[in-house]
């Protein structure tokens, strides 16, 4: 079976889980070929663009480190702005990856297999981008280690009552668990690559990374159980991490922040924005790497439905907050609603509403769910809307809280914007590097779900 890149796939056929007549070697070749091929000119051009963005970000961060947070637009009362918006945004992006790889795995949604590896990688890169922000927004980032409760001579411990410390634990745990979950998935693929490769250096590298994996069923049995356990651990972890992030705001008492719906609202919003980012990136990746037959229109359709569902959950929260603000009878709460809609940041608010509430409603229509340009544009705008949502929540509530004499507005400086650009640059750089060096689709998993991969009948045996 010779695989020819750029082959047109017939989308009118009822979608099986993996289209086309892919067999195991076909899969090996088409996925591994991305790693073996020399980087194309387009790839290098893309890498150049993203590295430039990283450079911009590095310069902005450098200025911040040397001259202090005063280079940003943060002031009193708006002590948090772009920094925490970006932090929450990137953590949110990471959640879709874990949703796809862990939660959909537990629900036995086999359509996840083609996109799980990529989504997990995106999670790890998003968490890396997110984790930078708590460090760079410190006044003295060289003392960042102080946030960990190690035995020390400071004469004081970290404040376990503070959600900022809960964040430290949550994000560290999330990063570690995502990383090992990803690595465990990669181990068999490293074994495959180790056996395939003829390059001596690569063979050593893959041998080390595969730890000697030899595809034995005795190992597969433990492996599968471990995978289920890790997926089962990662699922509540996803819920808890973004809930802990939401606690950063909800445990305070300022109007607009202190509201009990924040934890599930933030989790739904995270999945919403993350899924949109995954969709946007995958649309590009499948085209560039000729993986349309493994990441099909059906996958896009299902991801669009998830985006629609989570958009409605976010809309529910958008309805609950003003309702309760009115119902509570507290003038401060109602003012928050009015201020968000008609105050200084009204434009940001209304763009957010259009992008998060109205645009995803287009996904009710099958034609739009199956149109690549529409999917891409709506996904990008959803990301814009979700970034603005975090910005609106943080900045409007800080700029107008209980004491009118303390009110003040925030405007971003060029360093704020530079760091945001840098974080996107870092994210896309890591994705580009990943797609050229590691298998973007889980080779062993995808082989296990193609037609004819499993025994054709239960052979008269019953479950214990």
């Amino acid at each position, binding site marked *: 079976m010779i695989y020819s890149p750029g082959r047109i796939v017939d989308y009118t056929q009822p979608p099986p889980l993996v289209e086309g007549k892919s067999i195991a070697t076909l899969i090996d070749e088409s996925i591994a070929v991305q790693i073996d091929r020399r980087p194309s000119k387009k790839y290098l051009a893309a890498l150049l663009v993203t590295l430039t963005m990283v450079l911009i970000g590095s310069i902005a961060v450098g200025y911040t480190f040397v001259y202090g947070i005063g280079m940003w637009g943060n002031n009193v009362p708006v002590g948090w702005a772009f920094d925490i918006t970006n932090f929450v945004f990137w953590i949110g992006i990471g959640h879709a990856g874990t949703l796809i790889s862990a939660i959909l795995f537990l629900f036995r949604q086999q359509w996840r297999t083609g996109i799980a590896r990529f989504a997990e990688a995106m999670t790890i890169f998003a968490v890396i981008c997110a984790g930078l922000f708590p460090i760079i927004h410190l006044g003295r980032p060289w003392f960042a280690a102080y946030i960990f409760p190690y035995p020390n001579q400071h004469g004081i411990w970290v404040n376990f009552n503070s959600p900022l410390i809960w964040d430290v634990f949550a994000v560290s745990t999330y990063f570690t668990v995502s990383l090992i979950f990803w690595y465990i998935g990669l181990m068999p693929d490293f074994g495959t690559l180790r056996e395939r490769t003829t390059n001596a250096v690569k063979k050593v590298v893959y041998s080390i990374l595969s730890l000697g994996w030899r595809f034995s069923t005795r190992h597969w049995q433990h492996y599968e159980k471990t995978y289920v356990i890790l997926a089962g651990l990662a699922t509540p972890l996803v819920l808890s991490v973004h809930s802990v992030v939401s606690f950063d705001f909800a445990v305070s008492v300022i109007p607009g922040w202190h509201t009990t719906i924040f934890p599930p609202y933030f989790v739904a919003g995270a999945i919403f924005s993350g899924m949109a980012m995954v969709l946007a990136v995958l649309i590009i990746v499948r085209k560039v790497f000729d993986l349309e037959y493994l990441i099909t229109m059906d996958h896009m359709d299902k991801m669009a439905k998830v985006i629609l569902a989570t958009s409605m959950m976010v809309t529910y929260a958008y309805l609950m907050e003003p309702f309760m603000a009115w*119902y509570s009878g507290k003038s401060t709460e109602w003012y928050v609603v009015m201020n968000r809609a008609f105050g200084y940041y009204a434009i940001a608010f209304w763009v957010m509403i259009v992008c998060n509430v109205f645009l995803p409603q287009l996904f009710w229509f099958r034609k739009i769910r199956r149109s690549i340009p529409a999917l891409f544009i709506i996904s990008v705008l959803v990301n814009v809307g979700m970034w603005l949502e975090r910005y609106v929540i943080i900045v409007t509530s800080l700029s107008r809280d209980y004491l009118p004499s303390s009110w003040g507005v925030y405007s971003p400086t060029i360093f704020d914007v530079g760091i945001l650009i840098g974080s996107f640059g870092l994210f896309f750089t890591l994705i580009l590097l990943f797609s050229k060096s590691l298998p973007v689709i889980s080779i062993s998993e995808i082989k296990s779900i193609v037609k004819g991969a499993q025994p054709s009948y239960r052979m008269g045996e019953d479950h214990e």
Partner: protein
Amino acid sequence: MIAGRHPWGSNQGAVAFRKMSYTVLMIGVLINFFSYAIEPEHGLFSLVMSFAFVASVGLGALFWVAIEYLTSAVWSVAMRRVFEFLAGVIPFLIILALPLLFNLHEIFIWTHKSYIKHNSGMLIKLPYLNAISFTIRTIVILAVWVLFYELMTRNSLLQDTTHEEDLTKRNIKLSAAFMPIFGVTLTLFAIDWLMSLSPSWYSTIFGVYYFAGASLAAMAMGTLMVVTLNENGLFPVKLSRDHYYNLGGLIFAFSNFWAYIAFSQFMLIWYGNLPEETAWIIPRMNGSWAAISVILVFFHFLVPFVGLITRSAKMKPRRLISISICILLAHALDIYWLVMPAYSEKRAPFSLAELSFLLISFGFVFAVFAQKSKRNSLIPVGDPKLKKSLEFQI
């Protein structure tokens, strides 16, 4: 070929079950009258609890039916009819609602002009919390629920005889429309009947909290029915341990979800320590209510967590039945914990009224189930995915 008419309807066990549920219901109603006679407010509060419990099971069941259609799930098709029967309580909710709607003055303090006069914060809520708009809202919400219930189950029952695939497609569309409407109406229902018992208190997560309890209770009730029937050979088809595993998995997941929502609400109110919010939590943290809170966490979260965490546990029928019963009783305790502190802040009352709550709630659900299953098949015979559903393996 799967049998259309099945042994359940005329089975001796079925008849006994039907008789038993009506008896329980009647006894519950009698005890409720009796407790109403002794102390009208207490009797009415107990009826509020029954209303909230039965509505949660019915709406939760309809939610699961809708989810199955929306996700095009195959494994649960054989069990869908059981959930449709449970949702059958929805048209009868008006029976529970009417006595309450005529006695709002005894139940809700915001109907008292003196309370409104002494609490200026109530004035802003007046357009929302007054007897007329409250009644209209309840009637409209119940009507919307009945509408969706009737449309969806009618299609499903029709499919038994016609085997039309188109009916499935129609139900998928109805489910998609139902979901957002369900979210909003269930939230308003919970706010109206449960949250407004303490009218100065508010919590944006309250609707989600009620939803978590409702979906879990419905799944537990459905699991209880399915597993009991299947184990006794009364289910028309043989469901396997793999089906049980999925049911157990969903109970496990939603029990954890409830705990997460409950903890979020509690911790945020505790941490912010604002008097207008803690006023609701404090009575539930003192006196006999504190013990009830601890018992609630234990039986609603810890016991199902430990009891269903292993893979093999989720497949054991006896385990599923006992955990389902535990969750249903814990859900009743949850409703009790939500409602009764508004009636008796210092002491957790346990009297005839509470007994009538339990009897009416369970009797109502069982009676409706028994009645519906008398005439209709326990499985959606005409569903095109039924055969594949039975072949399901994990």
